[in-house]
């Protein structure tokens, strides 16, 4: 507050003088001003309406219809909750895909966060060349959901791939990873975990915010390294951990590209990589049941909203906001 109020004496005399003048000139004052705001916002608003809001509402409508991709829209029939009923009571592949996705998220997300935090702790110390390492560790997540990366992964985790070649050096009998239903999903998890760069950078930023006095004081009081980690680093970092957890969970549920590319768009072998979004895509674009796919998308949205809400409601028990103490 002290900082923001300081320059106000110089600004204060100008504003009242300017605002009435403008009001007189244009006649309608704040309304006008608001309108101008919307005009300036209009490119974004149009984009939001045209590309996000309207298509979303249409997809909500379509989720209650029997719409198939090739059906002309005027022949679409309203079927009420039939799509939702089918999803919850009849469609076995749907529940299988839910299972695959939950398994993927439950394993890959915590491991990814742990890897991100671990590497962030290592890279937090000032050392020669640490910037280079930060860059290198961040690199894989820049490649993000790239198709090329998934293709490289597929060839690396083939029976003749580089991974088995490497294991062979130690006399370990490799697996046909991506072509074996037991291992294929694990391969996708490893790919997801490997791309821990984005949460790592956020963790690094969070670590830099922790005041060093806390560590010094704790060290003076005889706290060991583990203790300082548990009682200073983790609590002080908890808002950042929370942020990363929410983001990565949503991200984990949405995994599509790698599963699509590695399984050739089928979710195979034997549906072992049939992630929720891939199943949705197959229903909508391969089997053309777009109404059903729309229903799946809305249930997905609701599920992610619920999971996020759960995170937020548990957050107050373990997320510690340091600045809150000042008030």
């Amino acid at each position, binding site marked *: 507050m002290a900082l923001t109020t300081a320059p106000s004496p110089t600004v*204060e005399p100008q*504003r*009242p003088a300017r*605002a*009435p003048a403008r009001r007189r000139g244009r006649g309608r004052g*704040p*309304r006008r*001003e*608001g309108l101008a705001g*919307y005009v300036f916002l209009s490119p974004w608003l149009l984009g939001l*309406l045209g590309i996000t*809001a*309207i298509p979303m*509402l*249409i997809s909500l*409508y379509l989720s209650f219809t029997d719409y*198939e*991709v*090739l*059906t*002309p*829209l*005027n*022949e*679409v029939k309203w079927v009420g909750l039939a799509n939702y009923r089918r999803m919850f009571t009849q469609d076995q592949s749907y529940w299988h895909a839910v299972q695959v996705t939950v398994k993927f998220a439950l394993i890959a997300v915590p491991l990814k966060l742990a890897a991100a935090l671990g590497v962030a702790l290592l890279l937090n110390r000032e050392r020669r060349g640490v910037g280079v390492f930060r860059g290198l560790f961040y690199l894989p997540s820049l490649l993000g959901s790239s198709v090329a990366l998934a293709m490289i992964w597929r060839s690396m985790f083939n*029976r003749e791939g580089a991974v088995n070649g490497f294991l062979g050096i130690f006399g370990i009998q490799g697996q*046909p990873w991506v*072509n*074996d*239903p037991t291992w294929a999903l694990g391969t996708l998890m490893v790919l997801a975990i490997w791309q821990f760069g984005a949460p790592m950078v956020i963790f690094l930023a969070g670590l830099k915010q922790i005041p060093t006095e806390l560590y010094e004081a704790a060290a003076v009081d005889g706290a060991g390294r583990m203790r300082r980690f548990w009682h200073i680093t983790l609590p002080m970092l908890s808002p950042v951990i929370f942020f990363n957890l929410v983001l990565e969970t949503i991200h984990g549920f949405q995994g599509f590209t790698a599963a699509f590319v590695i*399984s*050739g*768009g*089928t979710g*195979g*072998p*034997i*549906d072992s990589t049939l992630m929720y979004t891939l199943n949705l895509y197959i229903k909508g*674009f*391969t*089997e*053309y049941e777009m109404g059903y796919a729309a229903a799946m998308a809305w249930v997905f949205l609701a599920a992610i909203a619920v999971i996020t809400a759960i995170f937020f409601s548990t957050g107050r028990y373990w997320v510690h906001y340091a600045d809150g103490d000042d008030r």
Partner: protein
Amino acid sequence: MHPATSPAVTAQPARDHRTSRRALRALVAAVAVLPLALGSAACGNDNAGGPSPQSTDPVELSIFWWGGEGRAKLTEQALALYTTKHPNVTFKKTWQANQGYFDKLATLITGGDAPCIYQIDDNYLTEYADRGATLDLTSYKDSGKLDLTKFPESLWKYGVVDGKLAGVAFGENTQGLVYNKTLLQKNNLPEPTVGMSWEEFITWAENVSKVAKVPGTMDPSADYKAFWVWLRQQGKDLYKGKEPGFTEADVAAWFTLWKGARDRGATPTPDVIHEGNATDITKQLVVTGKAATSWVWVNQMPELKKNTKDELGVISYPGNPSAQWGRASMYLSVFKNCAAKDVAVDVINFLANDVEAGKVLGTDRGLPSNLDVRKAVNDSVTDPAMKLSIQVENELAGKFGQAPQVPPKGHSTMRSELIKAAENVQFNRATPEKAAADFLAVVKAALAK
């Protein structure tokens, strides 16, 4: 806070509220109106055939197909031939690989940007015809504007769905068992022969595995076309109207046959079989060297040959070859609401029946449908792989049986479910009987939809 700005601050919520309510109303209106607008736009021009082929007004026709670069080159040349004869007609050509083609085609049609002429195959023909995305070409055939008189009857009839001519068969092919000749010769092994029984074939493959140290054959239990031929040899069929033409016991017997072959070492390991199931034609096991034989369509020979240095041979699938038929390898269809239907049909008529165009296109899409063109191509072709596929298919043509019905809607689900069921057996996750029962239940549901 600042006194002068406070009115604006207090006015904010009310104004916001008004605007958002108005915006919401506009939004709802837009959502309600948009489908109607799109719907009416899509069914705008329904009966007119557009400009006639004789007119000289400039026409641009969009055409969309799947295939490789070779096909693109040939198709572009043939279309250029049409343009030299009808300088007013130009083409907007789009092509891509087979994977993702039907996703894109459906999206184009839904988005109101449908190509006038598009390539399609029997996996999707019924799907598109049922939903009114194909123009019924019967009247053009009857008036002679579309000349199908030189086509084998069973071939053009394979484009009829529910009494409507939904597509013009563009090329004929049949199932082909491709084997690695070089590998067999190197190991002094005999080649497989036409008409050998499935048991004999599996014994042959087992022997190849032992001698050549390369699995004798790709396991085709997940391959619908092999299953189809085998069914026809048992007096069954893949479909009977809109229902499966086989029983649970048939599927179980088919899976058991190949389980036996795997146990005897005639086929590769399950993960390699999966590779064969999942990849496209260029990476079939016979060209990647992971098996001595693969199960393909005969017209795919040139494409296979491009991916291996070894010499390849091709014969019919095991069992009585009369279970095979001359299948339309693909069709060209016209979009129902194309603005220049008459010209589009004339283009297809030209591509199918003109000898010069036929010579350009060769056997890339299968043997030419028009028998006169086929003969001309046969006499002029130079590519040895093309030559071989023509020769094999001509030999088999005399033995062909009656063509089956065009697969019904739900066929693509059947195909992917067969792969799942077969792989469940291959990875020992289900017995042949259990996999067969699950498979049939899902297929019945998909076909009934």
